[in-house]
C-alpha cells in the first residue's frame, strides 16, 4: 500500500514572529474563485461610488487682488510660481505651495490685458490699456528699491494680448494689428492686418514657432506665418471666438473658445469643418488652456463654471463650480498637469485638482496599485447602466441646470422647425447640416 495524505506544516503558512508580515499563499485556479465577473462588477460599482465620494477638487483660493482678475500666466521654469494681472493694473506674483502673494507691482493704468513669461523664466511681459508693453524682472527688487520695469515700449493703440516665442527673443502682441516684436527694438518687426479692427488673443504655435493664430473681433480666426508678410488664411465663424489654445502635443490642432457657448477644435490642414465641437457650457466661453499632455483641455465660462473636456469628446468629463465663484475670466492648466488655476470676477484665483478624486501627496505602492486597479475596473464596466449613471452624475448650480434645460428645449425647437421647413420645401433646397458644419461661415485664403 502506498499512501499520501495532505499534511501541511503550519510553519510554512504562519508568520514566524509578530514583527513579520503575514504569509499569503496564492492559488490562481479559477475554480477556487467562483463568481469572478459578478464580484468584479461589485468592485467596479464600489470603486465608482468611492471615486465620487472622494471627488473634492478644490485645493486653495488665492485672494489679494483688488479688482477682477483679467489674466494668469504660468512661470516658464518654476512650477510653483504663477503671475496674475487684474483690471486695476496690478500684477501679482504668487507662490502656490505657500499660497501667498510674493510680490505686487502696479504695472499699468487701467486693465492689465495680457501677461506672458519669457521662455528662460528670468522676466515677464505685461500689456495694458495704457498702450504700453512692459518687461519686468522675475526677481523682486531689493529692499527699498522701487519697482521699475526693465523695458517699456509705448505703442500706438491698446494691446489686448501678448505671447512670447518659445526659443528666441521675439514676442507677439495683438490689438488693432498683430505685431511681431524683437526684444531689442522699440518698434514692431512685422505687422499683420486683414481688414479687421481688433484682435482679442494671439498664440504662438508651441512646436512650429513661425506659425501664429489669433482671434479677431470680426468673428474670424486668422493664421499667420512670420516668414511671410501677409496672413495665411482665416476662418469666419458665426460668432466671435474669445481665445484659442494650441494642442501642445499635436500642434496642428487648436481649440477656440467661442461666444456661442461652444468650443471648437480645428485642424489647421482643413479649416472648413472643425474636428470636434465641444458643447456643455451654458454661456459664453472666455478662456481655454490645454493640459501639457495634450489629452484634455480646460475651459472657463461666463456661466461661473470651469469644464474639463477630453480633446476628442464632444462633452465635458468634469465641471467645477463653487457658490462664491463668479464669471471665470481666465484659466490655466499647470505644467505638471495636476492642477488648474482659474481667475474670476470676484478677485480670487482658485486652485483645483485636474483629477477631482486624486489623492495628493506621496502615495505608497499599495495605494498606487489600488488606485490603478480601481481605474481599470471603472473603465472595464463603464458602459453598465448603474456604473455609468454614478460616474456621470455631477451636481450643477440651480441656474446652470435651468439654463441647460432651456437650451436643450431651444435646440429641440430649432431642430423641429428646420425639419418642418425641409418637409415643406423643394427636396434638396434645405440641406441637412451636421453640427460641425453649422458654425463655419467660410474660409478665406
Amino acid at each position, binding site marked *: *500500500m*502506498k*499512501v*499520501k*495524505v*495532505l*499534511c*501541511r506544516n*503550519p510553519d*510554512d*503558512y*504562519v508568520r514566524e514572529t509578530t514583527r513579520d508580515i*503575514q*504569509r*499569503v*499563499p*496564492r*492559488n*490562481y*485556479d*479559477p*475554480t*477556487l*474563485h*467562483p*463568481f*469572478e*465577473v*459578478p*464580484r468584479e*462588477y*461589485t*468592485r467596479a460599482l*464600489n470603486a465608482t461610488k468611492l471615486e465620487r465620494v472622494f471627488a473634492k477638487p478644490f485645493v486653495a483660493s488665492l485672494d489679494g487682488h483688488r479688482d477682477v482678475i483679467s489674466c494668469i500666466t504660468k512661470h516658464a521654469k518654476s512650477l510653483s510660481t504663477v503671475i496674475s494681472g487684474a483690471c486695476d493694473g496690478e500684477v501679482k506674483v504668487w507662490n502656490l505651495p505657500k499660497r501667498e502673494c510674493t510680490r505686487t507691482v502696479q504695472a499699468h493704468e487701467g486693465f492689465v490685458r495680457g501677461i506672458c513669461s519669457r521662455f528662460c523664466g528670468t522676466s515677464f511681459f505685461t500689456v495694458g490699456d495704457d498702450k504700453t508693453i512692459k518687461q519686468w524682472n522675475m526677481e523682486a527688487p531689493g529692499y527699498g528699491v522701487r519697482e521699475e520695469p526693465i523695458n517699456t515700449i509705448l505703442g500706438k493703440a491698446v494691446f489686448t494680448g501678448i505671447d512670447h516665442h518659445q526659443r528666441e527673443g521675439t514676442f507677439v502682441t495683438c490689438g488693432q494689428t498683430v505685431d511681431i516684436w524683437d526684444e531689442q527694438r522699440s518698434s514692431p518687426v512685422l505687422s499683420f492686418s486683414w481688414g479687421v479692427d481688433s484682435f482679442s488673443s494671439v498664440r504662438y504655435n508651441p512646436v512650429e514657432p513661425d506659425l501664429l493664430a489669433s482671434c479677431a473681433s470680426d468673428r474670424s480666426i486668422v493664421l499667420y506665418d512670420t516668414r511671410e508678410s501677409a496672413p495665411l488664411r482665416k476662418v469666419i465663424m458665426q460668432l466671435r471666438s474669445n481665445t484659442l489654445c494650441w494642442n501642445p502635443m499635436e500642434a496642428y490642432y487648436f481649440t477656440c473658445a467661442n461666444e456661442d457657448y461652444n468650443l471648437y477644435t480645428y485642424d489647421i490642414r482643413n479649416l472648413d469643418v472643425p474636428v470636434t465641437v465641444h458643447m456643455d457650457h451654458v454661456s459664453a466661453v472666455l478662456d481655454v488652456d490645454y493640459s501639457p499632455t495634450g489629452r484634455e483641455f480646460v475651459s472657463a465660462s461666463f456661466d461661473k463654471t470651469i469644464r474639463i473636456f477630453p480633446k476628442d469628446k464632444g462633452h465635458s468629463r468634469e465641471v467645477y463650480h463653487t457658490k462664491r465663484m463668479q464669471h471665470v475670466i481666465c484659466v490655466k492648466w499647470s505644467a505638471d498637469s495636476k492642477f488648474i488655476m482659474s481667475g474670476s470676477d470676484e478677485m480670487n484665483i482658485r486652485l483645483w485638482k485636474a483629477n477631482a478624486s486624486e489623492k495628493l501627496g506621496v502615495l505608497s505602492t499599495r495605494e498606487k496599485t489600488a488606485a490603478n486597479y480601481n481605474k481599470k475596473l471603472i473603465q472595464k464596466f463603464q458602459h*453598465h447602466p448603474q456604473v455609468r449613471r454614478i460616474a456621470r452624475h455631477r451636481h450643477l448650480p440651480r441656474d446652470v441646470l435651468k439654463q441647460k434645460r432651456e437650451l436643450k428645449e431651444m435646440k429641440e425647437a430649432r431642430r423641429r422647425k428646420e425639419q418642418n421647413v425641409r418637409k415643406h420645401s423643394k427636396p434638396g433646397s434645405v440641406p441637412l447640416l451636421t453640427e460641425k458644419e453649422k458654425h463655419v461661415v467660410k474660409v478665406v485664403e
Partner: protein
Amino acid sequence: MAAQEVLTASHVERKAKKKPAKRYWEETENTEQNKPTEEESKDEQKQKPHTEKRKKEERLLSGKEDPFPGEKPIPQKQLRTFQRGQKHKVPARAGPKLKHAITSSESLSELAQKQAARYGLLLPEDAGFLEGDDGEDTCTIAQDDIADAVDITSGAKYFNLHLSQFGPYRLDYSRTGRHLLLGGRRGHVACFDWQTKHLMCEMNVMETVNDIKWLHTEAMFAVAQKKWLYIYDSKGVEFHCIKKFNDVLRMQFLPYHFLLATASATGFLQYLDVSIGKEIAAICTKSGRLNVMTQNPYNAIIHLGHTSGTVSLWSPNQKEPLVKMLCHRGAVHSVAVDKTGTYMVTSGLDRKLKVYDIRAFKPFHSSFLPAGASCLSLSQRGLLSAATGDVVQVYQNVWGSTPVSKPYMAHRLRGQVCGVAYCPFEDVLGIGHGQGFTSMIVPGAGEPNFDALDTNPYRSAKQRQEWEVKALLEKVQPELIGLDPGLLSKVDQASFEQRHKERVEVMGFDPLAKQKFKPRMRKKGRSSAGAVEKRKRKVAHEDQRDEIRQTVEEKMKRQKEQKERSDERKELEKKSALDRFKK
C-alpha cells in the same frame, strides 16, 4: 571601460576556441528529447522556427549559445485551465482604434493567462493518493491501516466520537475547513476546531434539530430547529430567532452572496440575507416537503430534489423553477453538484446513481447501487462519497467515460448514516451517523493549495476581520444569481424592439410614437366643435394616405413598365420574315 570591454572580448574569443567543458544540462537535454509528451512535441513544432531564429541572434557575450533559448514553454493543458472565454478576432472592417483596443486587450489577457499558468510551479503542496499493492483492492484497506501508515498528525485525522444519546448527527465544516459543527437530531449542538479538538461550545437546544450550517465565518451558525430558525454565535449565545423561517428542514449558505437558503416542510424556499438580516425571497415551490437540497457552487443556484423524482433549479429572482429535470423513478434521495458546476450527481429511491451534465442538461451515465444511496457528497477534487445504510463508499472518476462500478474506498460505521461532508482543503470525510461522528481519511479528496485571500485555514483573527470587511464590500447582489454567472461580462445584444420596450417602460411614454394631431384653438368663432372635427378630418390618416399614395405610384410604375415590355414583345411578334419585302 571601453578598453576593458575590448580586453575581455578578445580574452573570451581566445578561450572560445578551446573545446567547451561538458555541462550538466547536456545530458538532461538529451533525455528530454528522448521522451517528449504529445502536447509538448506539438508546442516544440510550433516554436521551432522561432527558437532557431533566436539561436542565431542571441549569442551570449562569451560567444556561447544559450542552451535554453526563449522562454520556457507552458503545457497546453495548464494554459487551458486559465483561459477565459474565446479569443476575439479583429473584424475585417474595424477601424484602427478598435483594432488597437482588441489586440492590446488580447495580448494583456494572454500575458495574464501565461503568468497564472506559470504560477503553478510555485504551489507548495501536492495532492494525496492511495495505491494498493499488486492485486490489493484499495477499497479493502481499513482506516486503521491508513492511519498507521501515515504520519502522526495525519493519522489523528481518523477519529470517532461516540455520541449515542442524541443522534443521528448532521454536520457542517466551515469554509476554511478548520471548524466543525455537529447537530444531533435530539437537540445536541456542538462546534469545535476539529484539528486541535478544541471545543468552542456545546449545548442542547432542547428541541429537534433538523439541520445546521455555518454562516460566513466560524463566529456564527444557523440551526434549523423544530419550529423556527435560530442563529447562535460560536460561544452558543442565541443571537436571533427568525420566526419568518419556520419548519426548516435543510439549509444552504451562499458565501459570496451572504445568503442563507432554507427549504421547509411546508414547501417554501426562502432566502435570508445574513449581512442585512432581511428576507430576500420566499418562493412557494408547491411540491411538498423539501428535504433534499444542495447548491451549485459555480452559480449559486439551489437544487431541490422532490418525491416525484424531479430535481428543480431555483434562483431567488424567479418564482418558478429555472429548470425542472425528471431524474429518477421514485423520490430523489440526494443531490450533489461539483465545484465547477458542470456535473450533478443524484441518487433516488430506484437505487440508481445518475450523473448529469447540468450545463447541457443531459444525462451523462447512470449506475445501479444494490442498496441505493441516501447521502451524496462531492469533494473538491471530484471524489464522490455515497452512504448506503451504515456503509460509506467513496468513488473515483465519477465523470470518466464509464459509469462507476467499484468503490475507491469503503468504511462501515456503527449506525445509520445521516450526513456526509468533505472537509475543504483536507483529505478528510466527515460522517454523521446514529452513534456519533466519524472522521475518515480519504487520500486525494482535498484541494492541496488554498488561496489565502479567499479561504485561509491558518488565518489569524486580524486576517479574518480584514477578510470579512473585504468580503462584505464585494458581496454579490442576489439579483445577479442566474444560470450563467459570467453573463454580466458579455455584450448585450438586445434587439431594437426590446430596447425600445424597456425605454418606454422607463420613460413612461413612447418617445417614438407619432403625436396625435391637435387642432389649434382659433378665435373669431372658428373653433366650434364641428369646425374642429372638420379640420381633424383633413389631416386624419395623412400618414396612411402618404403610404397608400406611394404604393399606388409604385404599382402604376410597375404596370407601365410591364405594359411597355409587352408592347415591345408584341411588336417583335408582329414582325415576320416577309416584312422586309414590304413596300
